[in-house]
């Protein structure tokens, strides 16, 4: 026999469509908010997650990938020399100032790495090649930031910290929503831009009980000529040492050994640093709360809409439900009809919503570079929320039908 619930649902198509639109709105709101949170969280640690680095070594004050104190570049070779370490490379990540071709300035996160590295990945190149970064004073930005950086195409020129820069390619899928625009460069180039050839001299004089200081900024004569950037010296500051362990090494043990060897430094596995960075941004920005609140509103809206539709449907069929009760049907049989109706509404609202959000996520990534990350786990959780929302909504209708007086069947 056909399902009474399904037939009741499809009996009034316009009302069914209104209900489904409401459910789709609620499901989409929850999915998008969750997807944005996932995308935000994922974007903050994308550089870490996409790398093949086993251990990240940094100053012990390190807060996340973008916020740490410098460590000497000499640490790289020292760590490389340790037992159990296969490869060690320098990684630079610091904020500096970008001046666009039109003269507008913007903050950028300069990411310096060895272009020949087998450990670090800078997303998916859409134009150019990583090897292009071997050319001095060249960078590869993320496509998501073309507008912010005032760029249109490869080959354009701009400046960083008053030094000229040429765009040699574009990448995508790397940008953290929480950070300034990423620009990728070789270690040498990054080091040159971050130190930018400027030297600072402080001159302080004690006059009586008063200390007077003045700062003098001077450009190095060799930088004016734009010589090729020099190789990193041991005293230059870097932000991380990326470590590839030898096969079979216990990463936690190796991390503890590195920390014991280098005073004032901390070693994190890839997972640890990723979690640290995500938690920092999600926690410190309050974005988790804001997006969670939005998702909660979506659930409330969904419950209200589904409740109203189910309640109206039950009221419309009160006489039939009363008839079933008069005939001797158990309460559970009637509840089952209502709950089945709610489940049908959940499933039929969920499927198009997830498809819609998937399409929206693709569109936002393609056009805005913003990731709305709908993972299989997210889809399952949202399905659970949708089903829960509809079943909770059914409780109102069940409450109504529980109190139906079977004597109403004898009223014309």
């Amino acid at each position, binding site marked *: *026999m056909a399902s*009474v619930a399904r*037939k009741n649902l*499809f*009996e009034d198509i316009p009302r069914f469509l209104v209900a489904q639109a409401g459910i789709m709105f609620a499901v989409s709101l929850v999915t998008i908010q969750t997807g944005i949170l996932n995308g935000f969280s994922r974007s903050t640690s994308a550089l870490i997650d996409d790398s093949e680095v086993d251990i990240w070594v940094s100053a012990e004050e390190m807060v996340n990938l973008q916020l740490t104190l410098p460590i000497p570049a000499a640490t790289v070779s020292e760590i490389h020399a340790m037992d159990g370490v296969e490869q060690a490379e320098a990684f630079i990540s610091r904020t500096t100032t970008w001046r666009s071709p039109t003269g507008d300035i913007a903050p950028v996160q300069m990411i310096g790495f060895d272009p020949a590295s087998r450990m670090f990945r800078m997303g998916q190149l859409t134009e150019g090649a990583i090897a292009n970064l071997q050319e001095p004073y060249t960078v590869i930005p993320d496509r998501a930031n073309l507008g912010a950086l005032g760029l249109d195409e490869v080959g354009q020129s701009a400046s960083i910290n008053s030094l000229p820069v040429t765009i040699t390619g574009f990448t995508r899928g790397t940008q953290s929503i929480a950070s300034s625009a990423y620009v990728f460069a070789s270690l040498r180039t990054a080091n040159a831009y971050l130190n930018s050839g400027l030297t600072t001299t402080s001159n302080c004089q004690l006059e009586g009980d008063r200390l007077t200081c003045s700062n003098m900024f001077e450009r190095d004569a060799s930088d004016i000529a734009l010589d090729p950037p020099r190789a990193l010296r041991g005293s230059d500051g870097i932000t991380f040492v990326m470590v590839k362990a030898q096969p079979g090494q216990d990463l936690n043990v190796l991390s503890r050994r590195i920390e014991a060897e280098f005073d004032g430094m901390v070693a994190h596995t890839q997972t640890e640093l990723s979690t640290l960075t995500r938690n920092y941004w999600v926690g410190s920005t309050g974005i988790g709360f804001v997006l969670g609140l939005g998702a909660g509103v979506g659930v409330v809206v969904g419950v209200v809409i589904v409740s109203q539709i189910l309640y109206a449907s039950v009221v419309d069929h009160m006489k039939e439900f009363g008839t*079933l009760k*008069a005939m*001797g049907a158990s309460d559970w049989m009637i509840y089952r009809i209502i709950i089945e109706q709610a489940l049908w509404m959940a499933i039929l609202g969920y499927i198009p919503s997830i498809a819609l959000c998937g399409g929206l996520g693709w569109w936002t990534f393609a056009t805005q570079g913003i990731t709305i990350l709908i993972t299989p786990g997210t889809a399952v959780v949202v399905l659970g929320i949708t089903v829960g929302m509809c079943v909770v909504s059914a409780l109102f209708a069940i409450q109504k039908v529980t109190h139906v007086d079977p004597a109403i*069947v*004898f009223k014309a």
Partner: protein
Amino acid sequence: MVVSSLQSPVTYPIHSLPAPAASSSYPVEHQPRRAAIAADHLNMVFRSGGGSYPALSDVQLRVPSGIVQLLMGPSGSGKTTLLSILAGILTPTDGAVHLLGEDITQMSRRELARFRLENIGFIFQGFNLFPALTAAENVELALKTKGVSRRFARKEALDLLEQVGLADKAKQLPKNLSGGQKQRVAIARALASDPPLIMADEPTAALDSHSGHAVIDLLCRLAKERDRTVLMVTHDPRIIDVADRVLYLEDGKLTQTPQS
């Protein structure tokens, strides 16, 4: 004595039943068959807004099994209230109701529901069919409610529709059926799983004269074929000739003849 004709009302002596109480409002006769429906000293008082409104007053009733019992009376006389009580849907203020020998006034709500499910088929004035279900599905739903398996329910539903002359309407929705056809679907539904009691509330009220008579003829014929007891509440005098016995209810009191 067995009913020999549907054309004239028959009254049954009920000497096999317990002696009625002296206060009985209906002079009970002796009859050879066991009472399918028995009510003793039924009173029903509705209370509303601080006032009380008596609907039934000391009603005594015996309906032998296998007959078509008509319960007539004007609007507001308490017919539907009495039917609701006899069906175990409404609880009387006091008094007892025995159906098929069981005291339903002592049953819990759950026991009553189970009793109705197994023993009573209902027919309503407004048909009360599920509008989204076809004729066959409406009958199937009743069978499924009684625990009949899906496959058997489908076959049984089609058989019942054939018996009420609606085999060709099995896949029609109620909105595509005439009033008479809807009531015939309701009869098929009431006969699902062959309950010993059938209770009908104004089954002809929404039908024209011809359809009404046809529906009642059908109901009575099927009930007689199956030796089922039918209690029918109506104020339609056109169907009086199909009943085995007629009682009148006026101002909450049962009589053998109409008082007005």
